[in-house]
């Protein structure tokens, strides 16, 4: 007989202020096989873990249930506790009574307590069915891929390379350096940005362990930690970067002028050009869209003057296949498109520019070739595209206050007779030396005015820009003409960040940037094992924070690579060889080709992702899922429906681990309420929930079933939504035949940021169930007679 210890956590009031934890403990003590029950303030603390270990020894416990927070949050903590006490880590189950009860039903303490009891009983019933699971580990080598060659990618590559790791640094542009290479000076120290960056760029190019691939794009990534397979396309540069001496003779003869993107279109470059004066590799590139056709018969002047014989019009894309063990994503940001705020006239008024253009103007001015005049009266408008519900960006971009202070100071110092204004809402000088820098700017006479202008006007004659703004401190409306208005545009995730996130199946947070695995304790990990993120791909941040994250990501990648082996996700499909007749239907439906039929079906563990989609297709019930077995889930379902009062309605929600379960946790954390008669069951993917299982659930007393699944683009498993759709259709057919409303079962795709959608969807489901009422017993009984063709 099993011996179970149940631990009810108070979470320092987070749970116990709402849920009657003692009542939950009393209830748990009456559950089958429960030997010890305790209610403790912080289960995750050393003291809490120690209590579990002592009880395991004293009472010979072989299973543990922790009724506390989300298993996604502290699950691994208690797995380690069990391992320390000599038990198999699989023998712990968490009842999520914080996110799913105390926080999401905080307005109804009594309901929250009742639900916490049921959640605890679900965990107890499930753990009774659990078996010890042996972990599978695999080898991991010392090759890393860094995607994106901005300062984050350069720093991460150098750290890894210095530690003896082979690094492939892939950059889509013809030079590394990223946005930092465009900046004038860095705040608050006013170092020249390219002067401190250029040596690092050169280091990266020359390091024997860094394999630099510029002008290259990632086409495809497959596999997992220790075994990522990457396909890269090196775009044709038409100039041999090893031969080119950057003498610039070719530029002199090139007849084509196009806007120079490095200077944000304020100056022109040739069709053959050096990407920037500090470009690494320091070689020219031909812009094939601008070049007169790459046909030497049409033009060919550059090749005529090239003494190094570096130009090759017949250059073709080069495809490279790599195998790497870890990946660091440093794909960076883009600036907010100021044209999306038409009231500020960017792109319409000649004298309205963006802050990044201002950076370039200051650099070019210092070189003695200003691309445009700046005038005497200059204004900065803060928070353009940040902190703005109208454009959907609620976040603060964090750098604009300080870069505006910097640009304003540089301009004021360059011409003390000029008047520089900064129009702000809140001035955030939070970093080291920032407040002092702000103070210096005030000392030299930069005018800070607290107010955000509604719109800008252009003086038709002088083309000066008129700013009318409320000084919110004096409540006076002030008006002034400016020669130049700089929009302090915020950061948005770059198209590369979005593309790579989709390719690598990395979830993004509500701001659109890549989501870290844990906001406090795993800030540079992604939920995908072996993939790390650093810099502005993860969220807006300045250079020191970016560099710190890059070094952190390199260190995290090394923790895995130095150890040499990695423990695999233990959730795998298992075939019952006696039941299987080798029909092969499962192999046809496996989205990752992990099943081979040799007489009977066989699973290839490193390939199997553990989605469980195959289970629904097996006509002989010969497939099960390890850790999420039929027995375990059915036990959980039974407990969720036990002791249901006659007038009571209960709805079961199957939540896929990556999106819906995480989303439900976020809903709880945000304290958004939804009806308490809903019970979440965590599954790797809702495609694992077979039609048979759903019908059984109805038969046992559920009044509604809802399945949540990751949206295709972010799902770790391909095509599961199709499987779910098919399964639901089957269940609905049977329900209709039994006279039960088919709308009682439904599903929806989610991503982790859809908090309102989750709450609305659940509310709607509850409404439908309320509309139809309880399912009468005789109709439920009809379901047991039905044979479902799976």
């Amino acid at each position: 007989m099993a011996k179970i210890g149940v631990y009810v956590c108070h979470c320092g009031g987070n749970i116990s202020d709402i849920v009657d934890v003692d009542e939950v403990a009393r209830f748990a003590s009456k559950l089958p096989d429960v030997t010890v029950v305790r209610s403790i303030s912080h289960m995750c603390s050393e003291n809490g873990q120690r209590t579990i270990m002592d009880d395991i020894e004293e009472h010979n416990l072989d299973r543990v249930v922790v009724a506390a927070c989300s298993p996604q949050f502290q699950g691994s903590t208690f797995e380690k506790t069990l391992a320390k006490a000599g038990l198999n880590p699989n023998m712990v189950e968490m009842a999520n009574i914080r996110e799913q009860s105390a926080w999401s039903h905080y307005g109804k303490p009594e309901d929250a307590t009742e639900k916490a009891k049921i959640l605890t009983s679900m965990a107890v019933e499930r753990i009774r069915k659990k078996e010890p699971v042996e972990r599978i580990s695999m080898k991991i080598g010392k090759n890393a891929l860094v995607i994106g060659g901005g300062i984050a990618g350069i720093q991460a590559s150098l750290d890894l390379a210095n530690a003896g790791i082979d690094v492939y640094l892939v950059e889509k542009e013809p030079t590394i350096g990223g946005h930092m290479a465009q900046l004038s000076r860095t705040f608050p120290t006013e170092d020249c940005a390219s002067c401190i960056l250029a040596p690092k760029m050169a280091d990266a190019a020359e390091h024997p362990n860094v394999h630099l691939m510029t002008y290259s794009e990632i086409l495809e990534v497959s596999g997992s930690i220790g075994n990522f397979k990457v396909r890269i396309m090196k775009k044709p540069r038409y100039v041999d970067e090893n031969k080119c001496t950057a003498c610039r003779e070719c530029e002199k003869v090139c007849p084509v002028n196009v806007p120079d993107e490095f200077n944000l279109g304020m100056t022109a470059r040739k069709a053959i050009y050096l990407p920037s004066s500090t470009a690494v590799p320091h070689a020219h590139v031909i812009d094939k869209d601008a070049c007169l056709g790459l046909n030497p018969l049409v033009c060919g002047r550059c090749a005529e003057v090239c003494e190094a014989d570096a130009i090759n019009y017949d250059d073709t894309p080069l495809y490279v296949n790599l195998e790497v063990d870890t990946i660091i994503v440093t794909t960076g940001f883009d600036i907010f498109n100021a044209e999306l705020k038409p009231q500020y006239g960017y792109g319409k008024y000649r004298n309205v520019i963006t802050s990044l253009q201002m950076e370039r103007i200051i650099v070019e001015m210092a070189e003695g070739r200003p691309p445009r005049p700046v005038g005497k009266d200059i204004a900065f408008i803060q928070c353009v595209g940040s902190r703005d519900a109208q454009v959907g960006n609620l976040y603060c971009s964090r750098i604009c206050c300080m870069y505006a202070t910097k640009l304003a100071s540089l301009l004021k110092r360059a011409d003390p007779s000029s008047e520089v204004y900064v129009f702000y809402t809140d001035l955030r000088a939070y970093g080291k030396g920032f407040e002092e820098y702000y103070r210096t700017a005030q000392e030299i006479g930069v005018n800070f005015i607290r107010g955000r202008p509604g719109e800008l006007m252009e003086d038709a004659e002088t083309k000066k820009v008129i700013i009318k703004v409320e000084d919110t401190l004096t409540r006076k409306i002030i008006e002034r003409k400016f020669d130049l208005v700089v929009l302090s545009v915020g950061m948005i995730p770059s198209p590369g960040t979005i593309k790579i996130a989709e390719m690598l199946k990395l979830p993004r947070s509500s701001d659109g940037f890549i989501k870290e695995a844990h906001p406090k304790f795993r800030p540079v990990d992604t939920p995908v094992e072996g993939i790390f993120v650093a810099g502005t791909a993860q969220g807006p941040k300045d250079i020191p924070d970016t560099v710190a994250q890059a070094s952190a990501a390199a260190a995290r990648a090394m923790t895995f690579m130095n150890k040499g082996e990695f423990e695999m996700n233990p959730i795998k499909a298992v075939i019952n060889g006696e039941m299987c007749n080798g029909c092969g239907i499962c192999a046809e439906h496996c989205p990752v080709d992990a099943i081979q039929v040799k007489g009977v079906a066989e699973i290839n563990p490193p390939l199997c992702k553990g989605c469980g989609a195959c289970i629904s297709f097996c006509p002989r019930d010969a497939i099960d899922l390890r850790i999420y077995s039929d027995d375990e889930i059915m036990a959980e379902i039974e407990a969720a429906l036990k002791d249901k009062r006659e007038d009571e309605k209960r709805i079961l929600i199957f939540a896929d681990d990556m999106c819906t379960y995480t989303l439900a946790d976020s809903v709880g954390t945000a304290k958004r309420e939804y009806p308490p008669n809903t019970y979440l069951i965590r599954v790797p993917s809702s495609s694992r929930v077979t039609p048979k299982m759903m019908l059984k659930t109805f038969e046992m007393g559920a009044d509604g079933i809802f399945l949540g699944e990751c949206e295709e683009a972010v799902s770790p498993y391909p095509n599961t939504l199709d499987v779910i759709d098919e399964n639901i259709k089957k269940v609905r057919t049977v329900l209709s035949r039994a006279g039960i409303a088919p709308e009682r079962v439904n599903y929806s795709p989610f991503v982790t940021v859809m908090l309102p959608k989750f709450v609305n969807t659940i509310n709607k489901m509850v409404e439908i169930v309320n509309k139809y009422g309880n399912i009468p017993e005789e109709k439920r009984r009809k379901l047991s007679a039905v044979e479902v063709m799976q």
Partner: protein
Amino acid sequence: MTKVMQIDEKNVNFLKKVEELSGEKITLCEQCGICTTSCPMVDEMDFTPAGIMRAVQIGDETIIESKAIWVCASCFSCTVRCPRGIDLSKVTEALRQLTLRKNVDHIDLKEVKKEKLPAIAVVSALRKFTG
């Protein structure tokens, strides 16, 4: 001389009342002032739109005696630009309602001069100035 305003329950209740009537979360306002210079009527106002919002935030009831809330044309310029997504026209409407609900007429229909006004202007003026 600057007068001290005592803040007590009365102020909190006023804020709650206006929030309830308008359905808007007034505490969200971050006082950036975008509404003020988006407002086509602000030149005629004794309080700026941002000023009205601030007064409600601190529960200053005297704001319902201001001219500004009647000058508001409910044109929604502030609403479409508010970076916090607050519908300010609902707030000014709520403030007007506080007076209108006392059955006070600000316009005697008989005394309205015959002018060529668009129908919508007459209707909105009637709605705004009569209880």
